[in-house]
């Protein structure tokens, strides 16, 4: 029951948390903007088939995501793909953080991410707690898609 593994913050996300914690005010927003600008575009197989992505209605802007679990390795890993418009940089920034921290990581690591990761990320003072709900919703969907694909394997 991998989805019942004890919660543990992966090193990648912990490193992002530490980066934000070392900054103040406007610099935190600039870092979030870098994540927004660094979110890679969808590969062609999804760009031409947006219906394959799952919407995340909890975000204030249209954002879609899909996860691919690779079962070939001894330890299965997962790829994460996100789509969010440039007019929604906050949402893109959250997607960029999850991508940076979790893309290509072992599924056990992804399933162990604490559900309240968004509260651990020290940005509420610059983006407001209200806007962090989208990040929680994205993470929950990533974990659910991973768990479903592990269950189906």
């Amino acid at each position, binding site marked *: 029951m991998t989805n019942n593994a004890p919660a543990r913050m992966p090193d990648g996300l912990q490193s992002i948390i530490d980066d934000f914690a070392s900054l103040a005010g406007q610099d935190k*927003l*600039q870092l*979030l*903007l870098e994540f*927004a600008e660094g979110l890679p575009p969808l590969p062609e197989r999804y760009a031409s088939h947006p219906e394959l992505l799952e919407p995340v*209605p*909890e*975000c*204030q*802007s*249209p954002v879609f995501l899909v996860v691919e679990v690779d079962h070939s390795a001894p330890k299965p890993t997962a790829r994460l793909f996100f789509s969010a418009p*440039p*007019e*929604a*940089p*906050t*949402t893109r*920034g959250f997607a960029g953080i999850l991508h940076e921290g979790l893309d290509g990581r072992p599924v056990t690591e992804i399933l162990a991410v604490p559900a309240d990761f968004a509260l651990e990320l020290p940005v509420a003072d*610059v*983006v*407001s707690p*209200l*806007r962090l*709900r*989208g990040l929680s*919703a994205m993470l929950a969907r990533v974990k659910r898609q991973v768990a479903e694909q592990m269950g189906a394997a």
Partner: protein
Amino acid sequence: MPVPLDPDPALAPYAHPGRLVSTEWLAAHKDDPGVVVVESDEDVLLYETGHIPGAVKVDWVMDLNDPVTRDYVDGAGFAKLMSTKGISRDSTVVIYGDKSNWWAAYALWVFTLFGHEDVRLLNGGRAKWIDEGREMTKQVPQRAATDYPVVERVDAPIRAYQSQVLATLGHVPLIDVRSTPEYTGARTHMPEYPQEGVLRGGHIPGAVSVPWSRAAAADGTFKPRAELEQIYFGEAGLHADDDVIAYCRIGERSSHTWFVLTHLLGLPNVRNYDGSWTEWGNTVRVPIAQGEEPGAAPPVPA
């Protein structure tokens, strides 16, 4: 010296044409002494991706809302914000933003709570400026701090509280500016938007549905006055001298409608009920109507 109004003849028919400026006017006057351009968006990071040169950012959550009480900042908080942004009491403030100026209109309404005299909206907002290929920059202006006075916030003329809405049910016309599924009660949030924790769906009994977007043209500018009169007077049945209360979900879309009724159609007593549906739909024992009809205001329970 007062900053001149936009002489654009398209604005002249509106009741208070001085409350709007065109993108052409702003391009010519944004660097005038006394003019401060303010961007106010739904997305807290949008300003950082690029903004009109010289514009400062005011965020509706981080800057205008009190961080603890569900209320707006007080006079001292507003004075501090204005000082930090380099805005003086006599500055001509021109606000623009995303989403057809929802949040810009909301910011303008809050500026009005503090009686800031000369505050205008950029007709068409951020999208029109960008669509016209006008200059954007990531450069954040360094404006000198000002000595903005501490002015007491005066809510009564333009802000309605739930108790006032309840007490005047059936007497003061209500305009519900949310989407139709929110009005009927089929859903408690906008399509594509998060559910914001409302326990009941529907509308305040007697409220007439006029979604805010009916006032906006395709390019995000406001529709001509004659068309607005047809919508609000012809269809919704308002009169030019009515007291009116507008509401939505948290008061931002209804600020857009408040601006239309107050400054474009000239109604003298329009209030924004900013508690809106997130307050009403969670309140125990207040009457609620569902479906497409406004419904009648029931007697207030003892």
